[in-house]
């Protein structure tokens, strides 16, 4: 069935992004919002808006019943969950479908399977993907954990089966650490995720975070090349690129093909991301997890392939076959995304909600700014600090970086501190220019290079 109306079950910049895609397809949009979000941009852009509850996420955006009731009341054909909130909640996907509407994403069963990190590891191995050395499945006891660690060595990660997105992870440096952390990690996982199941993965030191964008319609499966997301702080991505420009061609081919193999193995439907660690010194890559949603950093893939991933998701959910074949997907040039957060990078990334007094979005060739900001908008304190994404494309990575520097200088957000100064420093950094970084680079660089630069700026001011 063709989707004629969509409930946007999210907020912030991704809600704006979904509404834009829906409008391009001639689809009516209904935006849900909490009491704290009545004046957000997506509410203004949507055809209709519904207040679903108080500011606390669990009383609004995480409240399955309230969201499904809003969708029913609005009489929409489909629900787009965005990222975060209920986007990877299998019960929510099931509830939407049970209420006679389309969930824009994979079926609940696929979300459940891939959301269980142990089950996902098993299915990935079955599809022939290399996995990080570790336990074969869930570990029942500390004795089992000891046996696995004896084979893989230390340091080792204790991960929650129901975790993901960097949550529910502890690192054990040695056996004593493992003995101490294992029971605590289980209790914590049970409290956080309602599932105390644990598994072990060896820590791959000096790894890059590389991920492959996949699309499937249940019968046809393609990749849209890879993204490089190694620049992270506290396991949260800060800066993303496409492609991962230092990846050797043969590795890229095997990596992307492995993601398609996994999509085929589970009969994937919708847009998804297969995440890997890549060890540059050995040329080996290892599967980590699958995200069954649209990702924050999807625009860099759109910039190099010309594919509108959100529109494609909506078409697939409406029952259309993939509109593109693998042979049609080409990678052109280079794109970088900077996550602009309402945080003060020189004050330990202290979050800073507040009112935007002035906003100037940069213009220019290859520049895109996805945001929910407007002048006079007050960012509420109850949600994520992401306020915009500056995405820049260039024919080469060098051109891209040069354009990015100009775009960052042209981006003006006044009224609150933002992470723009951090991105300006990264965009002019020699190691970043060479691509000489791994997942541990940014935190160290913040303490040394950035602290020195920020200190110097503070003295001048």
């Amino acid at each position, binding site marked *: 069935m063709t989707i004629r109306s969509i409930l946007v079950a999210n907020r912030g910049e991704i809600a704006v992004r979904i509404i834009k895609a829906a409008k391009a397809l001639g689809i009516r949009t209904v935006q849900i919002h909490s009491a704290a979000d009545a004046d957000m941009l997506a509410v203004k852009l949507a055809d209709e808006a519904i207040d679903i509850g108080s500011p606390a996420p669990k009383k609004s955006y995480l409240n399955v019943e309230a969201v499904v009731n809003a969708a029913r009341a609005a009489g929409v054909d489909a629900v787009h969950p965005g990222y975060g909130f209920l986007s990877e909640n299998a019960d929510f996907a099931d509830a939407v479908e049970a209420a006679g509407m389309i969930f824009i994403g994979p079926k609940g069963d696929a979300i459940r399977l891939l959301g269980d990190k142990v089950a996902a590891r098993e299915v990935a191995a079955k599809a022939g993907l290399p996995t990080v050395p570790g336990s074969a499945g869930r570990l029942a006891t500390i004795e089992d954990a000891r046996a696995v660690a004896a084979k893989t060595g230390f340091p080792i990660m204790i991960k929650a089966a129901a975790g993901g997105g960097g949550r529910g992870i502890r690192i054990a440096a040695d056996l004593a650490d493992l003995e101490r952390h294992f029971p605590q990690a289980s209790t914590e996982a049970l409290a956080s995720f309602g599932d105390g199941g644990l598994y072990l993965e060896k820590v791959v030191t000096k790894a890059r975070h590389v991920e492959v964008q996949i699309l499937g319609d249940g019968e046809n499966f393609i990749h849209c090349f890879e993204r490089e997301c190694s620049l992270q702080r506290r396991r949260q991505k800060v800066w993303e690129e496409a492609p991962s420009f230092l990846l050797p061609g043969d590795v890229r081919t095997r990596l992307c093909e492995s993601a398609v193999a996994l999509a085929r193995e589970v009969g994937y439907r919708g847009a998804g991301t297969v995440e890997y660690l890549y060890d540059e010194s050995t040329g080996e890559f290892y599967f980590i997890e699958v995200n069954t949603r649209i990702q924050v950093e999807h625009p860099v893939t759109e910039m190099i392939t010309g594919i509108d991933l959100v529109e494609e998701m909506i078409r697939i959910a409406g029952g259309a076959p993939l509109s593109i074949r693998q042979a049609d997907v080409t990678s052109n040039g280079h794109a970088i995304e900077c996550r602009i957060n309402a945080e003060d990078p020189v004050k330990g990334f202290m979050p800073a909600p507040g009112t935007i007094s002035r906003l100037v979005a940069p213009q220019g060739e290859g520049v895109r700014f996805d945001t929910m900001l407007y002048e006079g908008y007050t960012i509420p304190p*109850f949600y994520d600090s992401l306020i915009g994404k500056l995405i820049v494309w260039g024919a080469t990575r060098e051109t891209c970086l040069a354009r990015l520097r100009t775009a960052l200088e042209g981006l003006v957000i006044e009224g609150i501190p933002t992470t723009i100064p951090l991105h300006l420093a990264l965009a002019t950094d020699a190691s970043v220019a060479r691509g000489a970084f791994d997942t541990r680079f940014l935190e160290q660089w913040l303490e040394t290079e950035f602290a020195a630069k920020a200190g110097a700026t503070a003295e001048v001011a």
Partner: protein
Amino acid sequence: MSKIEIRSPLPGTFYRASSPDVPPFKADGDSVTNGDAIGLIEVMKTFQEVAAGVEGRNITFLVENEEPVMAGQVIAEVEA
């Protein structure tokens, strides 16, 4: 007897305890000193401790656990 107000330094969500399964930092009627934590403010998914910043007796909370607060809003009062 004069009342002293304790205000929230930040906008966000107020919590009386560091996690749902531990007792609150301060029970109603407790005494506080300057450095005592009286709660947490969750702002954009990060947690900041709220210190009393005053000395006093018989604390009364004016904001419920898990309720939204504005910067500068009075969270609690103590007697000098």
